Protein backbone atom coordinates (compact mmCIF):
# COMPACT_ATOMS: atom_id res chain seq x y z
CA UNK A 1 0.00 0.00 0.00
CA UNK A 2 1.29 3.47 -0.91
CA UNK A 3 1.89 6.01 1.82
CA UNK A 4 -0.97 8.25 0.81
CA UNK A 5 -3.28 5.24 0.62
CA UNK A 6 -2.48 4.32 4.21
CA UNK A 7 -3.08 7.89 5.33
CA UNK A 8 -6.41 7.90 3.53
CA UNK A 9 -7.30 4.60 5.24
CA UNK A 10 -6.64 6.23 8.61
CA UNK A 11 -8.78 9.23 7.69
CA UNK A 12 -11.51 6.92 6.41
CA UNK A 13 -11.52 4.75 9.56
CA UNK A 14 -11.81 7.84 11.73
CA UNK A 15 -14.52 9.32 9.53
CA UNK A 16 -16.59 6.13 9.82
CA UNK A 17 -15.68 5.23 13.40
CA UNK A 18 -13.75 2.03 12.69
CA UNK A 19 -11.61 1.65 15.82
CA UNK A 20 -9.67 -1.54 15.17
CA UNK A 21 -10.04 -5.00 13.71
CA UNK A 22 -12.04 -6.25 16.71
CA UNK A 23 -14.62 -3.50 16.59
CA UNK A 24 -17.95 -4.63 15.12
CA UNK A 25 -18.81 -1.11 13.94
CA UNK A 26 -19.64 -0.08 11.34
CA UNK A 27 -21.07 -3.44 10.26
CA UNK A 28 -19.87 -3.10 6.65
CA UNK A 29 -16.23 -2.93 7.82
CA UNK A 30 -16.49 -5.89 10.20
CA UNK A 31 -13.30 -7.94 10.38
CA UNK A 32 -11.23 -5.30 8.61
CA UNK A 33 -8.35 -3.30 10.01
CA UNK A 34 -9.20 -0.07 11.75
CA UNK A 35 -7.59 3.24 12.67
CA UNK A 36 -5.30 1.54 15.20
CA UNK A 37 -3.82 -0.99 12.78
CA UNK A 38 -3.44 1.49 9.93
CA UNK A 39 -1.67 3.97 12.19
CA UNK A 40 0.74 1.29 13.31
CA UNK A 41 1.26 0.28 9.70
CA UNK A 42 1.93 3.88 8.69
CA UNK A 43 4.61 4.29 11.35
CA UNK A 44 6.20 0.95 10.51
CA UNK A 45 6.37 1.98 6.86
CA UNK A 46 8.28 5.06 7.92
CA UNK A 47 5.63 7.69 7.41
CA UNK A 48 6.48 10.64 9.65
CA UNK A 49 4.33 10.80 12.78
CA UNK A 50 3.50 14.41 11.96
CA UNK A 51 2.13 13.38 8.57
CA UNK A 52 0.08 10.61 10.19
CA UNK A 53 -1.41 13.19 12.53
CA UNK A 54 -2.09 15.88 9.96
CA UNK A 55 -2.92 13.92 6.83
CA UNK A 56 -4.57 10.93 8.47
CA UNK A 57 -6.08 11.62 11.82
CA UNK A 58 -6.87 15.32 11.46
CA UNK A 59 -8.23 14.85 7.96
CA UNK A 60 -10.65 12.23 9.26
CA UNK A 61 -11.79 14.26 12.21
CA UNK A 62 -12.26 17.34 10.06
CA UNK A 63 -14.71 15.40 7.90
CA UNK A 64 -16.50 14.25 11.06
CA UNK A 65 -16.85 17.81 12.38
CA UNK A 66 -18.20 19.04 9.05
CA UNK A 67 -20.69 16.18 8.64
CA UNK A 68 -21.88 16.69 12.23
CA UNK A 69 -22.41 20.38 11.60
CA UNK A 70 -24.46 19.56 8.51
CA UNK A 71 -26.58 17.01 10.44
CA UNK A 72 -25.33 14.25 8.14
CA UNK A 73 -24.13 12.33 11.18
CA UNK A 74 -25.20 12.48 14.82
CA UNK A 75 -23.69 12.15 18.29
CA UNK A 76 -23.36 8.31 18.18
CA UNK A 77 -21.22 8.46 15.03
CA UNK A 78 -19.07 11.25 16.46
CA UNK A 79 -18.49 9.16 19.59
CA UNK A 80 -17.30 6.19 17.51
CA UNK A 81 -15.06 8.43 15.41
CA UNK A 82 -13.55 9.84 18.59
CA UNK A 83 -12.81 6.30 19.75
CA UNK A 84 -11.16 5.50 16.43
CA UNK A 85 -9.13 8.68 16.80
CA UNK A 86 -8.06 7.66 20.31
CA UNK A 87 -6.86 4.30 19.08
CA UNK A 88 -4.80 6.06 16.43
CA UNK A 89 -3.55 8.61 18.95
CA UNK A 90 -2.21 5.89 21.25
CA UNK A 91 0.38 5.03 18.62
CA UNK A 92 1.31 8.68 18.23
CA UNK A 93 1.68 9.40 21.95
CA UNK A 94 5.43 8.59 22.12
CA UNK A 95 6.03 11.17 19.38
CA UNK A 96 4.19 13.85 21.34
CA UNK A 97 6.29 12.98 24.39
CA UNK A 98 9.54 13.14 22.40
CA UNK A 99 8.54 16.48 20.90
CA UNK A 100 8.64 15.12 17.36
CA UNK A 101 5.05 16.21 16.92
CA UNK A 102 3.34 19.09 18.60
CA UNK A 103 -0.22 19.98 19.33
CA UNK A 104 -1.65 23.21 17.91
CA UNK A 105 -1.96 24.52 21.43
CA UNK A 106 -3.79 23.94 24.69
CA UNK A 107 -7.52 24.28 25.14
CA UNK A 108 -9.04 24.43 28.62
CA UNK A 109 -12.70 23.46 28.65
CA UNK A 110 -15.38 23.17 31.31
CA UNK A 111 -19.10 23.46 31.99
CA UNK A 112 -19.73 26.60 34.05
CA UNK A 113 -20.64 26.84 37.71
CA UNK A 114 -24.10 25.55 38.62
CA UNK A 115 -24.40 23.42 35.48
CA UNK A 116 -23.94 19.67 35.34
CA UNK A 117 -24.31 18.99 31.61
CA UNK A 118 -21.36 17.42 29.91
CA UNK A 119 -22.20 15.72 26.63
CA UNK A 120 -21.98 18.89 24.56
CA UNK A 121 -18.71 19.85 26.20
CA UNK A 122 -17.30 16.37 25.67
CA UNK A 123 -18.12 16.50 21.97
CA UNK A 124 -16.29 19.80 21.64
CA UNK A 125 -13.28 18.23 23.41
CA UNK A 126 -13.26 15.23 21.11
CA UNK A 127 -13.43 17.25 17.92
CA UNK A 128 -10.74 19.66 19.11
CA UNK A 129 -8.44 16.79 20.05
CA UNK A 130 -8.97 15.33 16.62
CA UNK A 131 -7.95 18.64 15.16
CA UNK A 132 -4.64 18.64 16.92
CA UNK A 133 -5.38 20.51 20.16
CA UNK A 134 -4.33 19.35 23.58
CA UNK A 135 -7.48 19.50 25.70
CA UNK A 136 -7.52 20.08 29.43
CA UNK A 137 -11.01 19.17 30.63
CA UNK A 138 -11.98 20.66 33.98
CA UNK A 139 -15.32 18.82 34.03
CA UNK A 140 -18.68 20.22 35.12
CA UNK A 141 -19.77 22.85 37.66
CA UNK A 142 -16.47 24.71 37.19
CA UNK A 143 -16.00 27.98 39.10
CA UNK A 144 -14.24 31.03 37.66
CA UNK A 145 -11.42 30.40 40.11
CA UNK A 146 -10.84 26.93 38.72
CA UNK A 147 -10.60 28.34 35.21
CA UNK A 148 -8.14 30.97 36.42
CA UNK A 149 -6.03 28.39 38.23
CA UNK A 150 -5.88 26.24 35.12
CA UNK A 151 -4.85 29.30 33.10
CA UNK A 152 -2.06 30.02 35.56
CA UNK A 153 -0.80 26.51 35.03
CA UNK A 154 -1.22 26.66 31.22
CA UNK A 155 -0.92 30.39 30.46
CA UNK A 156 -1.25 30.43 26.68
CA UNK A 157 -4.33 28.26 26.50
CA UNK A 158 -7.58 29.06 24.78
CA UNK A 159 -10.56 28.65 27.12
CA UNK A 160 -13.96 27.15 26.26
CA UNK A 161 -17.07 27.49 28.42
CA UNK A 162 -20.23 25.45 28.05
CA UNK A 163 -23.73 25.92 29.57
CA UNK A 164 -27.13 24.41 28.85
CA UNK A 165 -29.56 26.68 30.66
CA UNK A 166 -30.04 30.46 30.55
CA UNK A 167 -29.67 30.55 34.34
CA UNK A 168 -26.24 28.93 34.25
CA UNK A 169 -25.26 30.77 31.08
CA UNK A 170 -25.36 33.89 33.25
CA UNK A 171 -22.32 32.54 35.10
CA UNK A 172 -20.32 32.74 31.88
CA UNK A 173 -20.28 36.51 32.15
CA UNK A 174 -18.37 36.56 35.41
CA UNK A 175 -15.92 33.90 34.27
CA UNK A 176 -15.19 35.71 31.00
CA UNK A 177 -14.67 39.00 32.85
CA UNK A 178 -12.27 37.45 35.34
CA UNK A 179 -10.31 35.69 32.60
CA UNK A 180 -10.04 38.90 30.59
CA UNK A 181 -9.04 40.83 33.72
CA UNK A 182 -6.21 38.43 34.34
CA UNK A 183 -5.05 38.52 30.72
CA UNK A 184 -7.00 40.37 28.07
CA UNK A 185 -5.21 38.39 25.36
CA UNK A 186 -6.72 35.06 26.43
CA UNK A 187 -9.11 33.81 23.79
CA UNK A 188 -12.44 32.68 25.26
CA UNK A 189 -14.98 30.59 23.35
CA UNK A 190 -18.51 29.97 24.57
CA UNK A 191 -21.25 27.57 23.53
CA UNK A 192 -24.24 25.47 24.55
CA UNK A 193 -27.92 25.43 23.59
CA UNK A 194 -29.11 28.78 25.02
CA UNK A 195 -25.98 30.77 24.08
CA UNK A 196 -26.16 33.27 21.23
CA UNK A 197 -23.71 35.40 19.29
CA UNK A 198 -25.34 38.49 20.73
CA UNK A 199 -24.72 37.22 24.28
CA UNK A 200 -21.13 36.46 23.32
CA UNK A 201 -20.56 40.03 22.13
CA UNK A 202 -22.27 41.42 25.21
CA UNK A 203 -20.06 39.59 27.70
CA UNK A 204 -16.85 40.15 25.75
CA UNK A 205 -16.07 36.56 24.80
CA UNK A 206 -14.16 36.08 21.54
CA UNK A 207 -16.25 33.50 19.80
CA UNK A 208 -19.58 31.74 20.01
CA UNK A 209 -20.25 28.75 17.83
CA UNK A 210 -23.36 26.57 17.79
CA UNK A 211 -21.23 23.57 16.89
CA UNK A 212 -17.68 22.34 17.52
CA UNK A 213 -16.54 22.69 13.90
CA UNK A 214 -17.25 26.43 13.93
CA UNK A 215 -14.80 26.71 16.81
CA UNK A 216 -12.20 24.61 14.99
CA UNK A 217 -12.46 26.81 11.90
CA UNK A 218 -12.16 29.95 14.01
CA UNK A 219 -9.10 28.67 15.89
CA UNK A 220 -7.42 27.53 12.70
CA UNK A 221 -7.88 30.98 11.26
CA UNK A 222 -6.90 32.89 14.39
CA UNK A 223 -3.79 30.85 14.99
CA UNK A 224 -3.06 30.31 11.34
CA UNK A 225 -2.93 26.62 12.03
CA UNK A 226 -5.20 25.16 9.37
Amino acid at each position, binding site marked *: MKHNEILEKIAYCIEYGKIDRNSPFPPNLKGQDGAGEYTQMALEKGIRADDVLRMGLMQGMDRVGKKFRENKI*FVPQVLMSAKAMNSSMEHLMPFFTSGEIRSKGKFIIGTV*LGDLHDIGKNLVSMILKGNGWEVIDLGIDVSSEKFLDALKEHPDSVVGLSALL*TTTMANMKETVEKIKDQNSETCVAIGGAPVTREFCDRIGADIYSPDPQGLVDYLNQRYNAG
Partner: protein
Amino acid sequence: MLRRFSYDFNELSVTKSDLEECIGIGCDLNSFPGQPEEALKSAADICQIQGGYRIFETIGKDYKERQLIAGEHYLKTGRLIFGQLAESDGLLVFVCTAGEAISAYAGKLMDKGDTLRGYLYDVIGSVCVEKALDKMEKELDAQMRKRSLGLTRRFSPGYCGWDVAGQQKLFSLLPEGFCGISLTSSSLMKPIKSVSGVMGFGSKVVKQERPCSICGKRDCIYYERNSPIKH
Protein backbone atom coordinates in the same frame (compact mmCIF):
# COMPACT_ATOMS: atom_id res chain seq x y z
CA MET B 1 -54.42 18.64 46.29
CA LEU B 2 -51.22 16.65 45.76
CA ARG B 3 -50.96 13.51 43.67
CA ARG B 4 -48.02 11.23 43.01
CA PHE B 5 -47.52 8.59 40.35
CA SER B 6 -44.86 6.17 39.26
CA TYR B 7 -44.59 4.27 36.02
CA ASP B 8 -42.80 1.14 35.02
CA PHE B 9 -40.38 1.71 32.15
CA ASN B 10 -42.07 -1.00 30.09
CA GLU B 11 -45.47 0.68 30.18
CA LEU B 12 -43.97 3.65 28.37
CA SER B 13 -43.00 1.50 25.38
CA VAL B 14 -39.86 3.42 24.49
CA THR B 15 -38.64 2.31 21.07
CA LYS B 16 -35.46 2.59 19.07
CA SER B 17 -37.11 5.15 16.84
CA ASP B 18 -37.96 7.28 19.90
CA LEU B 19 -34.25 7.36 20.65
CA GLU B 20 -33.39 8.20 17.05
CA GLU B 21 -35.90 11.00 17.05
CA CYS B 22 -34.46 12.44 20.25
CA ILE B 23 -30.89 12.24 18.96
CA GLY B 24 -31.80 14.12 15.79
CA ILE B 25 -34.07 14.06 12.80
CA GLY B 26 -32.44 11.70 10.30
CA CYS B 27 -30.47 9.73 12.89
CA ASP B 28 -30.28 6.02 12.11
CA LEU B 29 -29.07 3.65 14.82
CA ASN B 30 -29.03 0.66 12.48
CA SER B 31 -25.30 1.05 12.07
CA PHE B 32 -24.96 -0.02 15.71
CA PRO B 33 -26.84 -3.31 15.66
CA GLY B 34 -27.88 -4.61 19.05
CA GLN B 35 -26.79 -1.54 21.00
CA PRO B 36 -30.07 0.36 21.36
CA GLU B 37 -31.97 -2.89 21.85
CA GLU B 38 -29.68 -3.97 24.68
CA ALA B 39 -29.81 -0.56 26.33
CA LEU B 40 -33.61 -0.44 26.12
CA LYS B 41 -33.85 -3.86 27.69
CA SER B 42 -31.69 -3.15 30.70
CA ALA B 43 -32.91 0.43 31.18
CA ALA B 44 -36.12 -1.03 32.59
CA ASP B 45 -34.26 -1.97 35.75
CA ILE B 46 -32.43 1.34 35.98
CA CYS B 47 -35.05 4.02 35.36
CA GLN B 48 -37.06 5.04 38.40
CA ILE B 49 -39.85 7.03 36.85
CA GLN B 50 -41.94 9.03 39.22
CA GLY B 51 -43.79 12.28 39.19
CA GLY B 52 -46.54 14.21 40.78
CA TYR B 53 -48.61 17.34 40.65
CA ARG B 54 -50.47 19.82 42.75
CA ILE B 55 -53.88 20.95 41.64
CA PHE B 56 -55.13 24.46 42.28
CA GLU B 57 -58.85 24.31 41.55
CA THR B 58 -58.97 28.05 41.11
CA ILE B 59 -56.32 30.55 40.14
CA GLY B 60 -56.22 34.29 39.89
CA LYS B 61 -54.84 36.32 37.02
CA ASP B 62 -52.94 39.55 37.10
CA TYR B 63 -53.62 40.83 33.60
CA LYS B 64 -51.43 43.88 33.96
CA GLU B 65 -48.25 41.97 34.80
CA ARG B 66 -49.44 38.84 33.03
CA GLN B 67 -48.97 36.63 36.06
CA LEU B 68 -50.90 33.64 37.29
CA ILE B 69 -51.81 33.64 40.95
CA ALA B 70 -51.78 30.21 42.58
CA GLY B 71 -52.44 30.36 46.30
CA GLU B 72 -50.32 33.24 47.50
CA HIS B 73 -47.74 32.75 44.75
CA TYR B 74 -47.33 34.63 41.50
CA LEU B 75 -46.06 32.82 38.41
CA LYS B 76 -44.57 35.09 35.79
CA THR B 77 -44.99 32.80 32.84
CA GLY B 78 -44.61 35.47 30.18
CA ARG B 79 -47.09 36.78 27.66
CA LEU B 80 -47.38 33.68 25.53
CA ILE B 81 -48.13 31.11 28.19
CA PHE B 82 -50.35 33.56 30.06
CA GLY B 83 -52.35 33.85 26.85
CA GLN B 84 -52.56 30.11 26.46
CA LEU B 85 -53.90 29.81 30.00
CA ALA B 86 -56.34 32.69 29.66
CA GLU B 87 -59.40 30.42 29.62
CA SER B 88 -58.19 28.24 32.48
CA ASP B 89 -59.97 28.28 35.83
CA GLY B 90 -57.49 25.98 37.56
CA LEU B 91 -53.82 25.07 37.38
CA LEU B 92 -51.87 21.87 37.67
CA VAL B 93 -48.21 22.15 38.61
CA PHE B 94 -46.20 19.04 37.78
CA VAL B 95 -42.75 17.50 38.00
CA CYS B 96 -41.51 14.18 36.70
CA THR B 97 -38.17 12.39 36.74
CA ALA B 98 -36.49 9.31 35.31
CA GLY B 99 -34.42 9.16 38.50
CA GLU B 100 -30.77 9.57 39.35
CA ALA B 101 -29.66 6.03 38.52
CA ILE B 102 -30.00 6.28 34.75
CA SER B 103 -27.69 9.32 34.53
CA ALA B 104 -25.27 7.75 37.00
CA TYR B 105 -25.15 4.58 34.94
CA ALA B 106 -24.70 6.51 31.69
CA GLY B 107 -21.92 8.55 33.28
CA LYS B 108 -20.15 5.48 34.56
CA LEU B 109 -20.13 3.90 31.11
CA MET B 110 -18.87 7.09 29.51
CA ASP B 111 -16.12 7.48 32.09
CA LYS B 112 -14.80 4.06 31.35
CA GLY B 113 -14.73 4.80 27.63
CA ASP B 114 -17.92 3.02 26.66
CA THR B 115 -19.19 6.28 25.25
CA LEU B 116 -21.80 5.07 22.79
CA ARG B 117 -23.56 2.88 25.31
CA GLY B 118 -23.34 5.62 27.93
CA TYR B 119 -24.86 8.10 25.53
CA LEU B 120 -27.71 5.74 24.63
CA TYR B 121 -28.64 5.36 28.30
CA ASP B 122 -28.51 9.12 28.65
CA VAL B 123 -30.91 9.54 25.73
CA ILE B 124 -33.21 6.87 27.17
CA GLY B 125 -33.39 8.96 30.36
CA SER B 126 -34.51 12.02 28.38
CA VAL B 127 -37.01 10.11 26.27
CA CYS B 128 -38.54 8.33 29.20
CA VAL B 129 -39.36 11.54 31.13
CA GLU B 130 -41.09 12.87 28.03
CA LYS B 131 -43.04 9.67 27.51
CA ALA B 132 -44.02 9.55 31.17
CA LEU B 133 -45.38 13.08 30.85
CA ASP B 134 -47.29 12.14 27.70
CA LYS B 135 -48.88 9.33 29.67
CA MET B 136 -49.65 11.59 32.60
CA GLU B 137 -51.22 14.13 30.27
CA LYS B 138 -53.37 11.48 28.62
CA GLU B 139 -54.60 10.21 31.98
CA LEU B 140 -55.35 13.75 33.12
CA ASP B 141 -57.16 14.51 29.86
CA ALA B 142 -59.48 11.57 30.58
CA GLN B 143 -60.00 12.61 34.20
CA MET B 144 -60.80 16.17 33.22
CA ARG B 145 -63.16 15.05 30.49
CA LYS B 146 -65.17 13.18 33.12
CA ARG B 147 -65.58 16.49 34.92
CA SER B 148 -66.47 18.14 31.58
CA LEU B 149 -63.28 20.16 31.75
CA GLY B 150 -60.61 20.73 29.13
CA LEU B 151 -56.85 20.62 29.75
CA THR B 152 -54.20 22.80 28.08
CA ARG B 153 -50.93 21.41 26.82
CA ARG B 154 -47.86 21.41 29.06
CA PHE B 155 -45.76 24.52 29.56
CA SER B 156 -42.36 24.55 31.22
CA PRO B 157 -40.03 27.23 32.55
CA GLY B 158 -37.37 27.73 29.89
CA TYR B 159 -39.87 27.52 27.06
CA CYS B 160 -42.14 29.95 25.25
CA GLY B 161 -40.69 32.98 26.99
CA TRP B 162 -40.97 31.65 30.55
CA ASP B 163 -37.63 32.25 32.21
CA VAL B 164 -35.84 29.16 33.60
CA ALA B 165 -35.41 31.17 36.82
CA GLY B 166 -39.21 30.78 37.15
CA GLN B 167 -38.37 27.30 38.41
CA GLN B 168 -37.83 28.80 41.87
CA LYS B 169 -41.45 29.98 42.05
CA LEU B 170 -42.76 26.75 40.58
CA PHE B 171 -40.92 24.68 43.15
CA SER B 172 -42.17 26.86 45.98
CA LEU B 173 -45.65 25.56 45.12
CA LEU B 174 -44.56 21.98 45.84
CA PRO B 175 -43.36 20.30 49.02
CA GLU B 176 -39.59 20.17 49.41
CA GLY B 177 -38.00 17.18 47.71
CA PHE B 178 -41.33 16.31 46.05
CA CYS B 179 -40.91 13.07 44.06
CA GLY B 180 -37.23 13.07 44.93
CA ILE B 181 -36.55 16.18 42.86
CA SER B 182 -34.66 19.17 44.20
CA LEU B 183 -33.79 22.50 42.67
CA THR B 184 -30.38 24.15 42.86
CA SER B 185 -29.87 27.89 43.21
CA SER B 186 -29.01 27.96 39.51
CA SER B 187 -32.49 26.52 38.82
CA LEU B 188 -31.22 23.14 37.75
CA MET B 189 -33.25 20.14 38.81
CA LYS B 190 -31.61 17.11 40.32
CA PRO B 191 -31.87 14.38 39.10
CA ILE B 192 -30.88 15.81 35.71
CA LYS B 193 -33.47 13.80 33.83
CA SER B 194 -36.39 15.76 35.20
CA VAL B 195 -39.01 18.06 33.75
CA SER B 196 -41.32 20.55 35.43
CA GLY B 197 -44.25 22.58 34.18
CA VAL B 198 -47.85 23.63 34.42
CA MET B 199 -51.13 22.90 32.68
CA GLY B 200 -54.35 24.83 32.90
CA PHE B 201 -57.86 23.44 33.01
CA GLY B 202 -61.36 24.74 32.85
CA SER B 203 -64.77 24.38 31.28
CA LYS B 204 -63.85 26.62 28.36
CA VAL B 205 -60.40 25.15 27.73
CA VAL B 206 -59.66 23.52 24.39
CA LYS B 207 -56.20 22.09 23.72
CA GLN B 208 -54.38 24.29 21.23
CA GLU B 209 -51.39 23.94 18.94
CA ARG B 210 -47.97 24.91 20.35
CA PRO B 211 -47.75 28.68 20.29
CA CYS B 212 -44.65 28.65 18.00
CA SER B 213 -46.50 30.37 15.19
CA ILE B 214 -47.34 33.40 17.35
CA CYS B 215 -44.02 33.45 19.19
CA GLY B 216 -41.43 35.84 17.84
CA LYS B 217 -38.55 33.81 19.22
CA ARG B 218 -37.26 32.30 16.02
CA ASP B 219 -33.97 31.36 17.66
CA CYS B 220 -35.73 29.03 20.10
CA ILE B 221 -34.06 25.71 19.62
CA TYR B 222 -37.35 23.97 19.94
CA TYR B 223 -38.72 25.95 17.04
CA GLU B 224 -35.64 25.73 14.88
CA ARG B 225 -34.87 22.06 15.17
CA ASN B 226 -38.44 20.98 15.54
CA SER B 227 -37.24 18.84 18.41
CA PRO B 228 -39.43 15.97 19.54
CA ILE B 229 -38.76 16.89 23.17
CA LYS B 230 -41.93 18.64 24.19
CA HIS B 231 -41.35 19.82 27.77
